[in-house]
């Protein structure tokens, strides 16, 4: 039996009615030991902030496990209070931020290793379908160099759009990841 898919439509300008959760940005509860923040701006092709976007994240636990039956390695211990999923609408200045734990590295299908990463979906008025990107970490140079997804993006300036920046003066746990929907420094988006 094969059914035809339901097409995507834009999330529109009024997603704030139905989609934000009070605890959405907290992949782990605030104050969790080892918690990090990842945040930044969503920008349009003119460099203007996008104040009506929704950023969602999905990632492995610090031990590289997923609480999901389709992980053939089985469930790992994970981390207390860790949901894996984050959801944050942008504010009037186009800002989002999630609080999470650093994901672990993952085996890739070809025997290699994927560097620690966070999968991201962005929804917004003007986007007829979600766009998908990935956040990698700036202090994982060796792992990033061996990552097959990053390696497939040969242009340095394009690959750089996928790597978060440490926020100066904010300690080791604060990362900035801007998402440029369009333009010369357009973020790399993936077809998954």
């Amino acid at each position, binding site marked *: 039996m094969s*059914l035809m898919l339901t097409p995507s439509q834009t*999330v529109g300008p009024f997603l704030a009615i139905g989609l934000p959760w009070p605890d959405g940005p907290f992949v782990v509860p605030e104050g969790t030991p080892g918690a990090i923040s990842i945040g930044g701006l969503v920008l349009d092709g003119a460099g203007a902030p996008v104040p009506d976007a929704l950023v969602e994240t999905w990632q492995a636990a610090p031990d590289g496990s997923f609480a999901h039956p389709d992980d053939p390695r089985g469930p790992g211990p994970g981390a207390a209070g860790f949901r894996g999923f984050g959801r944050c609408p942008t504010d009037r200045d186009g800002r989002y931020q999630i609080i999470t734990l650093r994901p672990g590295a*993952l085996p890739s299908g070809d025997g290699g290793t994927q560097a620690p990463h966070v999968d991201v979906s962005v929804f917004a008025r003007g986007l007829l379908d979600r766009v998908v990107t990935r956040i990698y970490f700036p202090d994982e140079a060796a792992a990033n160099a061996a990552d097959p997804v990053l390696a*497939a993006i040969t242009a340095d300036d394009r690959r750089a759009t996928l790597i978060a920046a440490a926020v100066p003066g904010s300690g080791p746990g604060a990362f900035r990841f801007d998402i440029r929907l369009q333009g010369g420094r357009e973020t790399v*988006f993936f077809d998954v």
Partner: protein
Amino acid sequence: MSTELPPGPAGLVLPSYRRPAGVHPALDFPAYRSSLLRAPKRPPVPLAQGLTEVTGPLLGAERVRSADADLTTGHGGEPLGERIILTGRVLDSGGRPVPDTLVEIWQANASGRYAHGVDEHDAPLDPNFDGAGRCMTDSAGRYRFVTIKPGAYPWQNHLNAWRPAHVHFSLFGRAFTQRLVTQMYFPGDPLFAQDPVFNSVPDPAARERLIARFDLGTTQPEWALGYQWDIVLRGREATAFEAEQPR
């Protein structure tokens, strides 16, 4: 039959999800004015589905109350408008139901006004309607909402532009690859022909799949009109393991 998966080249056998060729709108669709500065200009980079993509959040039950599926209650009185029952199944393209998955909806009120500060349409708000609902699918993948039929409303996309009446839907499925946000429309709407959002779906047959079906069997006498709308998410390919099983 053993449920143990044979090790692949890396000891890792993952499901994979069929790619939705030709179904979803192109992001770059100038007739929809909001896309002009927001749609990426570069083609997306193909990403091999790995552990992060074939897993996904299995959540929602703890954040849904049964009352959340009835948008007509929970306020001081009943909202104005045509009461409707909106129900259907969430399936994957293999025809399998998607049980226990979170469905979130939001919509305008009966006069075509959203309960949101950005909506400047000169139509009345309804103090008894905020337009947000959520529920979990049951073991057969079925969802069910009670709400009111949303009104059409004007927008600034082009001269005399009006959105057909619609309800926004958000679905998770069971994997990151299955995530879907879409809109459900009502049958016979005269506004379809001039709506760039509806018509952004390239295949006319796929557009039809966004339209609910009026169903007298779902309609409750003396109380509410019934609509049925099934939602189909990306399905899993047969794994190499399944394909190798004797028939």
